[in-house]
């Protein structure tokens, strides 16, 4: 009997544990409290910080009120694109509900103002301690990045790593701009180290890239002779003959971390 009883207790405890895990989430959802996952996906600036001064602002454009506070950023958990590093700095938060000085929490925000300081708009609050939520945000961010990379890999026709041997004018003729937005296509020749997706029949692969520094194209990577990296290439129809590979997006040259992840998940 004892032998049977123990598994039953384990089952009961397991059910209790499951209940304890699921019920708060279910209750939170029922009460309209957004999940860390959804807040992480919606926010473009997430930080762990403390309220230094309630009812205040350190941006002249913001009128202080009970819905504003100055908070010190302890740790940036996510900052999109090209925002300066605000770790250790004080920012103005446009609050969803008042806080008091000393409150420490994870702020899920969107950037509203950039002036003498940063002004962010709080988009929601998650339930739990700051430490718990921060850990959940880190996990959610990893999943967001993994899913984003997976989508980019899926959209690419050829994923290869290698070294740039040469960049050259197509057919030996430098492109002429008709409008300021012309891409001014040039060609890069890549010595292939590894193929992570697609097929490269030879040891070298050539691909087009926009050499234009116009605002439409400036952020697309410009291959440099000797440069090593992993490229996401896309087939595009050529004006004459077979389709050609091209790098089209700013993210078509992977970062080192992305390249490592891509090598782990992509198959030729």
């Amino acid at each position: 009997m004892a032998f049977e009883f123990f598994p039953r207790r384990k089952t009961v405890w397991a059910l209790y544990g499951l209940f304890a895990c699921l019920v708060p989430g279910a209750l939170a959802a029922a009460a309209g409290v957004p999940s860390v996952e959804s807040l992480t996906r919606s926010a473009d600036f997430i930080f762990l910080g403390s309220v230094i001064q309630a009812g205040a602002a350190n941006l002249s454009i913001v009128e202080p009120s009970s819905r504003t506070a100055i908070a010190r950023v302890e740790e940036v958990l996510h900052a999109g694109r090209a925002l300066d590093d605000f770790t250790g700095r004080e920012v103005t938060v446009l609050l969803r509900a008042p806080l008091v000085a000393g409150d420490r929490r994870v702020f899920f925000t969107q950037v509203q103002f950039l002036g003498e300081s940063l002004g962010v708009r709080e988009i929601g609050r998650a339930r739990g301690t700051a430490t718990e939520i921060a850990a959940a945000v880190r996990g959610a961010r990893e999943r967001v990045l993994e899913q984003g990379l997976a989508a980019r890999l899926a959209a690419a026709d050829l994923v290869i790593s290698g070294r740039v041997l040469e960049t050259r004018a197509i057919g030996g003729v430098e492109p002429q701009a008709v409008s300021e937005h012309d891409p001014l296509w040039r060609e890069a020749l890549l010595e292939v180290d590894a193929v992570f997706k697609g097929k490269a029949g030879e040891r070298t692969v050539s691909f087009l890239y926009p050499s234009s520094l116009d605002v439409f194209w400036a952020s697309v990577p410009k291959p440099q002779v000797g440069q090593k990296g992993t490229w996401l290439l896309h087939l595009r129809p050529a004006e004459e003959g077979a389709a050609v590979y091209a790098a089209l997006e700013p993210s078509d040259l992977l970062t080192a971390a992305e390249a490592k992840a891509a090598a782990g998940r992509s198959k030729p």
Partner: protein
Amino acid sequence: MSGRRRIFLFFGLGLTAAVPWLAGARPARAIDVCGNGICAIHAVPPESCSTCPQDCGSCCGNGICAAPENCATCGTDCGTCPAVLVINMMPLAQSAEAIQDSEPNLAVNPSNPLQIAGTAFTDNPTGGSAAPIYVSTNGGFTWTLNNIVPSGAGGTADITLRFGTTTNTLYAGALRDDNLQFNIFRTTNFTSGTAMTSLRNRFDVDQPFVEARTFSGADRVYVGLNDFAGANGRTATIDRTLSGTVASPAFTTIRLETRNTCGQDGPQIRPAIHSDNTVYGVFYRWRAPTCVSPRTADIVVVRDDNG
């Protein structure tokens, strides 16, 4: 540090040492109130010439040129303004920004020239769904990026701005970043974080250029644009409303081009509004015999005497 500020410092410390109840026993609020004649530099938050000039005196004259002081507002501390003053519009909080901020545009509020709005191909630095405008409320000495232009992807393509002459209302003509949809936007408070309202939108349009002027309390808004829906390449167009300030303005599309072209007019179609209600438009008409660059073009000026 100025004599005045030093005086306040010593005054505050001496008073605190001599009268302990001021520092401890007496409720802090009693000495924190701005306007009570005491410059409470040790209060939380501390009073200063910038937060409480009534008690602490004006910052101007303390020998320190600190924001929001500048050469125009406090020559004593900041010196005489040079004939040409170059201002870096990129805010201090985003000083590492290095993208290509092309095709700038500025609008000065005619009823308050200290208010200036600016645009360029500047991105919201975190992406997001709204693009920024540049905002200055002190005549351009300092700037703040305010992400209030709905754009889908944190930036815009072509974008221009104008204020109504007496309404303080700001209008923008812009192409969204995510799908290049043309929009006419409006805000009644360009320093607010509230997203601008879209008054009109459609696709297949290039280079919106907005002008506005107030007549009898109503903003007339004219947006020059290259509208590829114009038949036979008659693309030079103005979208116009005579009542931009009402909740849902009615717009009319006016074709400026009356002759066939080489497939389209040049992209720049610019309106101008005279205070006597005359409206002008100027554009390039791309025409035969040379329809490729370098093209044959007429410069065409049109006028409507009744707005």
